């Protein structure tokens, strides 16, 4: 077989992978872009007024690619934001809470480029979501403490007064806290959980809390925040008091955060009232 024939065969095979499926007013385009978990990427093209919209159909957020959907790992988020900003991918949360990633084209000549970029975005994000950046021990430590702390807060706080794992500004999806406590609509308390399976993870968790509080102070929400509360996991293997004391005191002095050890968690009932 001549190499030119090989090329023709490659071109034919790639070309044959493109498929479509009509879905109401949208056209699903199955592309030749593949993920590392062996799925072909689909994009959905529809019209909105005179504009063409190319979306992921909410499939990344819906876990349709068998991908992890609630990935909060810092390394994953860095990669997500990198691809999002490099390719100019927009996002919107629908009324049912699903995040859609999309691009627009006002001129039909630009549609192929938008499909090229969005398919590349989906391919990368789904594939990267398969990578576990943190150790199993760290993931388990975090998940266990979040679960314990959430249950404790829910045990004495009315459901309509607390939001768990929530953005300070939901529209911009900025600054996510473990919990937001609403004393009234104009008086809220920021709550951060601090934990880690090793000294380094524990220290990073303190630094993250520090940054989140600092950044919250730079927003319009500052005047509504009456307290910042850090709940410290004294049961975690990364909690080594003599090694982290200066980080914790910096957090307390620098941000004005109230520090509550898990071993004295009942103090939260006094702070949150």
């Amino acid at each position, binding site marked *: 077989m001549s190499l030119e024939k090989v090329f023709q065969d490659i071109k034919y095979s790639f070309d044959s992978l493109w498929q479509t499926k009509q879905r109401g007013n949208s056209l699903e385009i199955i592309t030749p872009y593949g993920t590392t978990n062996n799925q072909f990427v*689909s994009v959905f093209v529809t019209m*909105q007024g005179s504009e063409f919209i190319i979306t992921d159909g909410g499939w990344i957020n819906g876990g349709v690619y068998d991908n992890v959907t609630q990935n909060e790992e810092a390394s994953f988020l860095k990669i997500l934001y990198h691809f999002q900003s490099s390719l100019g991918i927009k996002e919107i949360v629908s009324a*049912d809470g699903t995040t859609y990633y999309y691009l627009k084209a006002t001129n039909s000549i630009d549609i192929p480029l938008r499909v090229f970029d969005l398919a590349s975005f989906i391919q990368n994000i789904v594939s990267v979501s398969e990578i576990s950046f943190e150790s199993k021990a760290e993931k388990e430590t975090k998940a266990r403490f979040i679960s314990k702390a959430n249950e404790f807060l829910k045990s004495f706080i009315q459901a309509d007064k607390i939001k768990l794992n929530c953005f300070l500004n939901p529209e911009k999806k900025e600054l996510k806290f473990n919990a937001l406590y609403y004393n009234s609509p104009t008086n809220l308390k920021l709550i951060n959980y601090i934990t880690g399976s090793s000294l380094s993870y524990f220290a990073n968790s303190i630094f993250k809390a520090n940054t989140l509080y600092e950044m919250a102070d730079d927003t319009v929400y500052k005047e509504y925040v009456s307290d910042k509360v850090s709940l410290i996991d004294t049961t975690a293997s990364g909690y080594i008091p003599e090694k982290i004391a200066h980080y914790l005191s910096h957090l307390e002095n620098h941000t004005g955060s109230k520090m509550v050890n898990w071993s004295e968690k009942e103090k939260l009932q006094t702070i949150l009232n």
Partner: protein
Amino acid sequence: MNKITYNFIYLTFLGQVNNWLNMTSKKHSVIRDNFDFYNKLLEERKSVFSEVIGICKTGNNANTLEKIEPVKHPSISDEMILIVDVKINNHNFFQFKLRYQTFFDEPFFRFDSDGVTHHNKIDGIPLHLQAVKPPHFHRFNADGLEIAYQTEKLLNETEKKALEDINLCIAYFFQESNTRLNQNEFPVIKILPGTLGFSFITEDPNQNVTFP
């Protein structure tokens, strides 16, 4: 040549998909190293005990309703489960999964009514024939590679349309996976029992979303 390949792609799992070799993708050694046991999980008669499977709560994903049912398998003493997932806003988009976590974390056999086109990365088959659109079944082959396949029923447009009905489809899934209720019966699925039974079918995923 193409015809032979095509038949390979769409054989049911009781056929010879097990013999596919030379894969170039992610392989699960626990399945590859215990492939006889894996086949036993699939082929031996399994039982469920609920005549009605009512699906009313969301699972790990907020946009998916999920129900988990215990499954009895004659060769194992601990828990095997059947998971039925239905998208909240599109009841025609559902999955049936059989999982035996002691052996393997992910479902070992599953059906997708809709969703993503799967890539069976198998040497010796033309690239474009490696793409398998839903509806399709998923299983693992002798190399521990997850593969999707369609049966003759799923390739027949009329039968495929009929299998959009979740109750006809669960019976078909049970036949394909050798699972039954009692001697030779199938359970009935009720989505959001106790409600008016309004069926949400949103074929267009972009419907009702405004893109600023």
